[in-house]
C-alpha cells in the first residue's frame, strides 16, 4: 500500500516504531500537495520547510519520547493560530496578520508529535457552506472539480479527501466540519462544546464554535480527539471533566445501543439519493443489532432561524476588533478615525461577512433584542429540551449531514438564504452543544459522496465514535478516494 492510502493511525504507528521516517512521510505528502493542490486549491499556505525541519527533529527523538501523533502530517484550517505563521481566516482584513501565540490545539498537536504541513482555505471567518466566501480562491471538490467542497472548512475536507494530508483540523459553528466532510466523502467530528479548547481559534460565534478533526476514518478521528481534548486554563468555557481513551474504546460492543431516527429526518428538500443513503444507513445499523427507535424533535424545524439570529449577533461583536488599529488591514489612514475604521472594514470584509455583521447588529440593537436575540435564545433552550427528551430513550440520533450532495460552484452564491438552509441538519448539534460526526454513507448517482450524521449525548464522544466505527467496519464508503488522489 502506498503511503497516501494509509490511515493516520497506520502512519503514526509505523513512524513511532521506526518503520517510517517522519521526514519521508512529510516530504511525500508535501510532494502530493505540490502536485495536486493546484487543481484542488485546498491550501492557503504551505509550511513545507519548517515541517521538514520539525520532522527531522521528531526522527531524532528516542522511542520513549514519541507521542501519540508522532510524525503525522496535519493541515489546519486557517482560523487556528500558529505563532509566526500567517492566519488569514480567509479574509483580506487579516491577509498579513501573523499571530504571536499558538492556539492550545497547536500546542497539543506539537506535544503529541504531529507535523503541521500547512493552512487550509475556508469561507471568510468561517461564514459559509461552500468555501466560495474565501477572499483568496475557490477550493474545488476533489470528487468533481466543478463542485464546491462544502464549507466553511472546505480546504481541510478537500485536503483529506484528495489525501494531501492524512488528517486536518476544521472548525464547526453550524456544521462547518461535518457538511464539507459529507460533501468530500471523509469523516468529520464536531466534539461536544467545551471538549476542545477554543483558545487561539479566531472566533466566529463563541457559544457555538468548536474545533474538530477531519480524517479518513472514525479510528483516526478518535486518535486526534484524544490528543486535542481536555481542559485548558486559557478557555473558561472549556470543560473540566476528564477525557476518555477514545481510540481504545472503539471496539466495544454496539449491540445494547439504541439509535434514534427522527420521523421527519428525510422530509422536504432532501435529495432522493441522500434519502436512499440515509435509509441504507438505518438498515446497516439495524443489521449490527442496534435498536432503531423513532424520535421527534419538533423545535428543530426552527433551528436554522434560531442559529442565524444568534450566530450573527455574536459574530457582529467578535468581528468588531478588526478596526485597523492594532493589526491587520488599514486603509484611508490619512482620513479621520471614523472614516479609517469604516473604510478598513468596508475593504477588508467580503459580502457575506458584511451581511452577517449587519444582521447581527440588527438582532442586538435596541428595540429588537427581545424579539429576536432573546427569543432565539429561548427557542435554543427548547431545541435542547427536544434532544434531552430523545436521549432519555436513545444513545445517539441518526440524521443526514447535508440535504444534498455537493452543489456546483456558483450555484448558490447569490442566494444566501438557500445557502443557509444547507445547514439544516447540522445546526442543532451546535445549538445544543452536543457532539456529532459525519460519516461517508454512500454515493449519489453522479458519483458524489453522501454523508450521514450521528449526534450523541454531551461528552459521550466514546459512544458516538464506537457507533461510527462499527458502521465503518460494516461499510467501505470511507475507503473510497476520488480519482484525483490516484494520479
Amino acid at each position: 500500500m502506498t503511503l497516501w492510502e494509509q490511515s493516520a493511525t497506520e502512519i503514526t504507528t509505523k513512524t513511532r516504531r521506526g518503520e517510517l521516517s517522519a521526514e519521508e512521510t512529510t516530504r511525500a505528502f508535501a510532494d502530493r500537495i505540490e502536485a495536486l493542490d493546484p487543481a484542488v486549491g485546498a491550501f492557503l499556505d504551505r509550511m513545507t520547510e519548517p515541517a521538514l525541519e520539525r520532522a527531522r527533529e521528531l526522527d531524532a527523538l528516542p522511542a520513549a519520547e514519541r507521542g501519540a501523533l508522532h510524525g503525522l502530517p496535519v493541515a489546519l484550517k486557517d482560523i487556528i493560530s500558529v505563532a509566526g505563521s500567517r492566519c488569514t481566516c480567509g479574509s483580506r482584513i487579516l491577509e498579513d496578520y501573523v499571530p504571536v501565540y499558538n492556539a492550545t490545539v497547536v500546542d497539543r498537536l506539537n506535544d503529541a508529535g504531529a507535523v503541521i504541513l500547512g493552512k487550509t482555505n475556508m469561507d471568510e471567518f468561517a461564514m459559509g457552506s461552500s468555501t466560495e466566501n474565501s477572499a483568496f480562491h475557490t477550493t474545488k471538490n476533489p470528487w468533481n472539480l466543478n463542485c464546491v467542497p462544502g464549507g466553511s472548512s472546505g480546504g481541510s475536507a478537500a485536503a483529506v479527501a484528495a489525501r494531501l494530508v492524512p488528517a486536518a483540523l476544521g472548525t464547526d459553528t453550524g456544521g462547518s466540519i461535518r457538511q464539507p466532510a459529507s460533501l468530500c466523502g471523509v469523516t468529520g467530528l464536531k466534539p461536544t462544546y467545551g471538549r476542545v479548547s477554543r483558545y487561539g481559534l479566531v472566533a466566529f460565534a463563541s457559544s457555538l464554535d468548536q474545533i474538530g478533526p477531519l480524517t479518513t476514518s472514525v479510528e483516526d478521528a478518535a486518535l486526534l480527539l484524544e490528543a486535542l481534548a481536555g481542559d485548558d486554563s486559557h478557555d473558561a468555557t472549556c470543560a473540566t471533566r476528564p477525557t476518555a481513551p477514545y481510540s481504545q474504546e472503539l471496539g466495544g460492543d454496539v449491540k445494547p445501543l439504541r439509535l434514534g431516527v427522527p420521523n421527519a429526518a428525510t422530509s422536504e428538500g432532501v435529495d432522493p439519493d441522500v434519502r436512499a443513503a440515509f435509509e441504507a444507513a438505518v438498515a446497516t445499523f439495524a443489521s449490527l443489532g442496534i435498536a432503531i427507535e423513532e424520535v421527534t424533535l419538533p423545535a428543530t424545524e426552527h433551528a436554522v432561524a434560531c442559529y442565524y439570529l444568534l450566530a450573527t449577533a455574536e459574530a457582529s461583536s467578535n468581528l468588531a476588533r478588526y478596526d485597523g488599529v492594532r493589526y491587520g488591514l488599514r486603509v484611508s489612514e490619512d482620513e479621520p478615525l471614523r472614516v479609517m475604521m469604516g473604510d478598513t472594514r468596508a475593504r477588508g470584509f467580503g459580502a457575506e461577512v458584511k451581511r452577517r455583521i449587519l444582521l447581527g447588529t440588527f438582532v442586538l440593537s435596541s428595540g429588537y433584542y427581545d424579539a429576536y436575540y432573546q427569543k432565539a435564545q429561548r427557542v435554543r433552550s427548547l431545541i435542547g429540551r427536544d434532544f434531552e427528551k430523545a436521549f432519555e430513550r436513545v444513545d445517539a440520533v441518526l440524521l443526514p449531514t447535508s440535504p444534498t450532495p455537493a452543489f456546483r460552484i456558483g450555484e448558490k452564491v447569490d442566494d444566501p438564504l438557500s445557502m443557509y438552509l444547507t445547514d439544516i441538519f447540522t445546526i442543532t448539534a451546535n445549538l445544543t452543544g452536543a457532539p456529532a460526526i459525519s460519516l461517508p454513507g454512500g454515493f449519489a448517482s453522479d458519483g458524489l459522496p453522501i454523508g450521514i450524521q450521528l449526534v450523541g449525548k454531551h461528552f459521550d464522544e466514546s459512544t458516538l465514535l464506537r457507533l461510527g466505527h462499527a458502521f465503518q467496519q460494516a461499510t467501505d464508503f470511507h475507503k473510497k478516494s476520488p480519482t484525483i488522489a490516484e494520479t
Partner: protein
Amino acid sequence: MADFDEAQVRKLAELAHVKLSDDESAGFAGQLDEILGYAERIQAHDTDGVVPTSHALLEAGLEGASALRDDEPTGSLDREQVLEGAPDPGDGLFKVPKVLP
C-alpha cells in the same frame, strides 16, 4: 417585524462601522429582508417561561461554576514584536488618526 429598507441598512452599517456603497445597501436590504422574513418563524413558538440559553452546557446543567484564575502575573508579550504587526507603530504606541482629546 422590521422591514429592511436601505435607510435601516445604512443605520446598521453606521453602528457597525462598515462603509457601504449605495449598491451594497440596496442589495443587503433585499437579502436581509428575506432572511429576517424566514427567521420570523421563531415568533410562532410559545416560549413563555422558557429560560434563554446563552451557554448551552451550563443551562443544560452539564458544566458547573465559572473557571477562575489565580491573581498571579504570567508575563506579557514583547512590545516590539506586537508593534511589528501594527499598521502604524511608533514611540511604543499604536498610532491612529488624531482623536480630539
